């Protein structure tokens, strides 16, 4: 009887170990599937043009890595300009967005005024409007204002986000009322209270919003494609598409991959530094489904 019990226990332990082993195999397999494209793009970018094209069977490593493709990426196509454009676009859009959403979130969270409830309901319902519906008119509007191929035209429609107003409002509301009342007694104005108390307290949320917006800006493709046809105003996404279709010549894949690596690196660094914040922010209300 006693022996039997031991055997059952041992069997269970073995089964558990086998299961855990299989589990790890499965997880490692998926990790490889996720990481492999990144490995392949770095690897291809380090192969020389002639080496790459002479490999009928692709090689999984290279013994003669070269950086010449990176030189090509910056000299043969205006990659540096695409890069600079994207940085300008990202910084200005994100900055303007903060200027717009912080007061709005503050008004909804803290101020009392007539029509607030109605305004908030309307804001919320706007969250359900897909971008595809409004982009058509925006395209026509920007074209009629002669703002195509300008940063103004690129930036303006991307400035507001109802979702971030909502996220920030929820955060602002968690700051205790007592703080506000005390500040009022001290004669602090609403604006001072916002800048000196609320913004510092909500810094973690604000940082999360900034990071998510930066990712969104860096990857935006559709609107820039519609609104720019002058390569001087291309962002990296459009740049990479341009490189693919007219860049180094269709077959210079190593140079193309070098450009892809250069474009991907900033966000990957951002991710490595802030991955906890980014993941927490996305799980609180992800945008990309």
């Amino acid at each position, binding site marked *: 009887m006693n022996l039997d019990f031991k055997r059952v226990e041992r069997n269970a332990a073995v089964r558990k170990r086998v299961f*855990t082993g299989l*589990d*790890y195999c499965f*997880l490692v397999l998926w990790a490889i599937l*996720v*990481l492999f*494209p*990144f490995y*392949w793009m770095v690897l291809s970018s380090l192969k020389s043009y002639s080496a790459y*094209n*002479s*490999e*009928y069977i*692709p090689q999984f490593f290279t013994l003669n890595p070269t950086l010449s493709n990176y030189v090509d990426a910056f000299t043969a196509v205006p990659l540096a300009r695409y890069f600079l454009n994207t940085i300008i676009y990202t910084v200005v859009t994100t900055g303007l967005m903060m*200027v*717009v959403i912080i*007061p*709005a979130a*503050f*008004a*909804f969270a803290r*101020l*009392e*005024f*007539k029509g607030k409830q109605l*305004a908030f309901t309307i*804001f919320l319902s*706007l969250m359900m409007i*897909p971008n*595809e*519906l409004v*982009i*058509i008119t925006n395209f026509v*509007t920007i074209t009629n204002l002669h703002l195509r191929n300008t940063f103004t035209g690129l930036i*303006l429609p991307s*400035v507001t986000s109802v979702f971030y107003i909502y996220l920030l409002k929820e955060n602002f509301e968690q700051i205790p009322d007592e703080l506000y009342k005390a500040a009022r007694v001290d004669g602090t104005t609403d604006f001072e209270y916002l800048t000196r108390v609320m913004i510092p307290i909500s810094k973690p949320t604000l940082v999360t919003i900034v990071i998510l917006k930066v990712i969104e800006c860096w*990857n935006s493709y*559709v609107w820039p*494609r*519609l609104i720019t046809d002058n390569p001087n105003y291309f962002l*990296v*996404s459009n740049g*990479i*598409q341009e490189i*693919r*279709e007219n860049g180094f010549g269709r077959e210079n894949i190593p140079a*193309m*991959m070098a450009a*892809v690596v250069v*474009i*991907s690196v900033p*966000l990957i660094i*951002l*991710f490595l530094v802030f*991955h906890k914040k980014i*993941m927490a922010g*996305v*799980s609180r209300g992800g945008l*990309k*489904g």
Partner: protein
Amino acid sequence: MKMKKNDLKGWLYLLPAILFLGVFMVYPLIDVLVYSFEEGYNSASQTYHGIGLYNYAYVLHDPYFLQAVRNTFLLVIITVPVSTGIALLISLGLNAIKPLRDLFQTIYFLPYVTNTLAVGLVFMILFKKTAYTDGLVNLMIQWFGGQSVDFIDGPYWAKMFVLCFYTVWVVMPFKILILTSALASVNPDYYSVARLDATPNWRIFTKITLPMISPMIFYLVITGFIGAFKAYSDAVALFGTDLNAAGMNTIVGYVYDMLYGNSGGYPSFASAAALILFVIVLTITCVNLLISKKHVYR
């Protein structure tokens, strides 16, 4: 009087947001409806010669649109269940381990922050067959004795496969993240009680885990449907900007092609197509919500 001043201040704080939303969201929303009913709209002279349903009729009879609808529906029907299913498996796998869990989670989330266009190019190269090389994926197919296929310029099913594969790869991080946090938030007491009763594992899964995370699964299905119906940049990344020529256009791609590019200049047709898409997505979301009301444990 004081009350009034406060009202004004509230609206003043909202003013920038209202201005931007008004110009770039509310006005366009009304305008897109107007466009879709204006027949024969000319974007150069900004004139039209009638009001009616012609734009809708045109779009619904356009073979490119029908192709786009077919592609989009296939993409949705394949990728939503597949990605949700695999994400559930991976999250369960993650939930069962302790060491390295954070590392795996971080790795799995990486595709979320990458540029869809840029990484799509890598996928294109992996799957493409050129004069110089069959490409890596075809090499692997040949290892297992299969025939190589050009996934980028080849048969329709092959192109569809790559598109679905890449879409799943792109949407996975979000789903894994949501499901792992859902699994982690199930009250461990339920499991302890089940263990005391010697409940078999599959029963624990179907009777405790699944019901507890079902709201999140439905959330993912709904957002998955919405996201997949809007697929566009993944297809561009793989097949280039001329999606009609590749036969791989999506509904959103059709809208943009009507607006701009070689076939562009028809905001009315674009508006009609966008509204058709909106109605499709709205209907399916409502159906999803109805189903979830019945089946989701609360």
